[in-house]
């Protein structure tokens, strides 16, 4: 293994994880575009590496969310059926798809993420709607450490949530990202799950979703340990730094900058899909 390249990959993965954890998006959203656009790494190998990194990140990160009871286990299992199935379909398509199509879809997802970040709004207020039937026993509560108050909620619109979960799975499988970029806003804005529970549940789910992706890419020989190992080390270190920075800096104050980075990466991928390579990219 080229140690200089391994160090560079680890550093890039750490930066991707810092940005991802500050935004609650996971590292894959930044990792795949940077590896493909700036390192010239084969798109499928970058996606395979990202899927493994997402799994590792979820294994580490979801313990913290589980301790705080931010993970709604019943909701996760219910949504996971369609999300994991979507991930297999997405991965089977993505592993053999024309790279231009994958670049175009990835670019569109990043532009969507940038715009939704710039226009971000959050479902506020008591999430619980008394009188809402809880036939599926999905209602839950957790103690919010920021306010020391109990937050109770009953997720709404489950059929819609499962449909969106399948879509998030397809995107996750095709692009090697966790799918949190779709799941968190869907749970919060459409299903009325408080944002902390949405992030915690999504963090637990994306690890399971990405397992489905990772096995498909593994079977196709698209897992390169010389990329995966530095990426895992970098993402682990970056995730730790990112979670500490998030407490100190207010990520939202930087959201315009992050939205601009996502928009640049998204536009670069869309241009790459059209055969255009921007200066400084490979």
């Amino acid at each position, binding site marked *: 293994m080229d140690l200089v390249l391994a160090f560079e990959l680890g550093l890039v993965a750490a930066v991707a994880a810092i940005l991802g954890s500050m935004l609650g998006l996971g590292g894959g959203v930044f990792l795949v575009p940077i590896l493909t656009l700036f390192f010239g790494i084969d798109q499928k190998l970058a996606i395979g590496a990202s899927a493994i990194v997402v799994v590792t990140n979820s294994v580490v990160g979801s313990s913290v969310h589980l301790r705080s009871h931010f993970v709604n286990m019943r909701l996760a299992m219910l949504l996971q059926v369609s999300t994991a199935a979507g991930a297999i379909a997405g991965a089977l398509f993505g592993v053999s798809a024309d790279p231009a199509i994958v670049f175009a879809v990835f670019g569109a997802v990043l532009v969507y993420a940038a715009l939704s970040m710039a226009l971000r709004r959050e479902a506020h207020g008591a999430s619980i709607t008394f009188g809402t039937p809880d036939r599926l026993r999905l209602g*839950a509560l957790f103690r919010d450490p920021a306010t020391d108050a109990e937050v109770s909620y009953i997720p709404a619109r489950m059929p819609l949530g499962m449909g969106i979960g399948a879509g998030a799975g397809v995107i996750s499988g095709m692009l090697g990202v966790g799918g949190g970029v779709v799941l968190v806003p869907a749970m919060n804005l459409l299903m009325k799950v408080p944002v902390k529970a949405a992030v915690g549940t999504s963090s637990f789910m994306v*690890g399971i979703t990405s397992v*489905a*992706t990772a096995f498909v890419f593994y079977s196709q020989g698209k897992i390169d340990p010389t990329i995966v190992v530095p990426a895992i080390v970098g993402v682990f270190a970056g995730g730790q730094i990112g979670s500490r920075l998030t407490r100190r800096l207010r990520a939202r104050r930087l959201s315009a900058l992050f939205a601009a980075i996502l928009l640049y990466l998204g536009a670069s991928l869309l241009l790459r899909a059209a055969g255009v390579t921007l200066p400084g990219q490979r």
Partner: protein
Amino acid sequence: MSDPHPAAPPLLTAPPEDVEADRLTDQMPALSESLRRRYDELAPLHRAAIAVLTWGFRIGAALLTLGLIFSLIRREALNTVSEPFADVLPGVLRGDPAGVVDLAILWFMVTPVITVIVVGLGFLRLKDYRYAALSLLVLAVLGASIWLALD
């Protein structure tokens, strides 16, 4: 002469939504109590999942470190493609650094699968058969991806 449209008794003049709000406010403590019971009931299941994830990460990180140390000691480069499943274990038994690194990667991939098994068993223990069955369904979907990988 009596009023042909007498005023309705006060209770009936209240807007229906207020009556509903009162009725629901009465339900709030009971619902909150029910969610609190659910919180306590799921706590062991959360603890079990945390244990699997924590040990999953520790074992994976140890294997990865071991593989990298072997690689440095023996001055052997890592493979640029992971070995097929069938070749990983023999590689590990030979003390092959690439085999140990592949095992670490596979271990990280298997950890969430073990977590789903533990969560499913937890629901079974709670006699929550619906979510035990759903966990089994998730396992079946993951099993399909593993089967695709082995095929």
